[in-house]
């Protein structure tokens, strides 16, 4: 099971990103350990300043905006 974290302190884009990843995972039949990280100190600890950011298996793969669908698919495959 892949561990995916969405970094963001509750802004709308962060919410959109979270839902998008959930949706793509459902469609591809992948089960994820999807988690929201909302604590600002925890977000900064990943070195991310522009939210939303996405962390897959402990590695930052995206920051600063809602990722596009293709990108999300590539993380989950």
């Amino acid at each position: 099971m892949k561990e995916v974290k969405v970094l963001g302190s509750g802004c709308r884009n962060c919410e959109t990103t979270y839902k998008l990843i959930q949706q793509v995972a459902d469609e591809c039949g992948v089960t994820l350990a999807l988690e929201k990280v909302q604590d600002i100190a925890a977000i900064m600890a990943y070195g991310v300043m522009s939210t939303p950011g996405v962390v897959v298996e402990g590695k930052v793969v995206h920051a600063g905006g809602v990722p596009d669908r293709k990108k999300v698919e590539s993380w989950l495959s």
Partner: protein
Amino acid sequence: MFEILGDLVVFKLLGLSGESAAGQALHFFVADTAKIFALLVAIIYVMGLLRALLSPERVRTFVRGQPKWLARSTAIILGAVTPFCSCSSVPLFIGFVEAGIPLGVTFSFLIASPMINEVAVVLLASLIGWQLALLYVAAGLAVAYAGGAIMERFRPERWVEDYVWKIHMGEAALAEPDNSLRGRHAYAMTEVREILRRVWKWVVIGVGVGALFHGFVPLDWAKQLGDVWYSVPAAVLAGAPLYSNAIGVVPVAEAMLVKGVALGTTLAFMMSIATLSIPEMLILRKVIKWPALALFAGVLVVAFTLVGWGFNLLT
């Protein structure tokens, strides 16, 4: 082209008269909305291809460790070309503080970033004229430089929330951008979609307000009001609680200038709307205390007023 579209929709299709207020307002709305969205798509796409849009992480790397005047200049210029969402201002603030960037420089960035952005500037140049665009940029850079420098005099460090100093930031290895033409195209398309999604409502509201102004405000309204000294501070104070993205302000300014509102008053109003906003202030409250926020707002109100008076005197 967009005028023709406006003519077609409003006068032919809806049968409104070009003389009536409603006809004029609607014509402005249709022509301007079409024009602005077409321009936006083109501008953002080209900027995306050139990768001219920077991320705050990269700005931080550029600015840290520079001597203060250089740090401030770099922060302002980079702030102008960094599309910046107010929801990022808290992590951005903490990231700058953690990198040892002086608070005054951070404030300069926070002023420059929402006020000036390259998309709004190109839009301003194509709708109103490059002279005004240039004036707006020059005035904006000056306000950002001076505003941050003045804030610094008040030792704002004492108003930063304690937890901010304790945060340690990790070094993220962000993925290398794909610089092939295909990668750039994909990136540019994402940027277009992302930025339009964020600003479309400000554009529609801005054009709507501009259209009402255009159709229903009499032509010598601004003259009747007169160029009294307090028209500038009044415009700044009226703009403060209003918020719109810098892009959405452009059609409002366009309509104001057509109706004969003085240049300085229009510029001051634009800056106030784009930069001073209550939601933005409340977000910043998470990292700085009330006195710093009040100072920030106060410095900006004074600066915008001076800019407005200055330009009204010159023209």
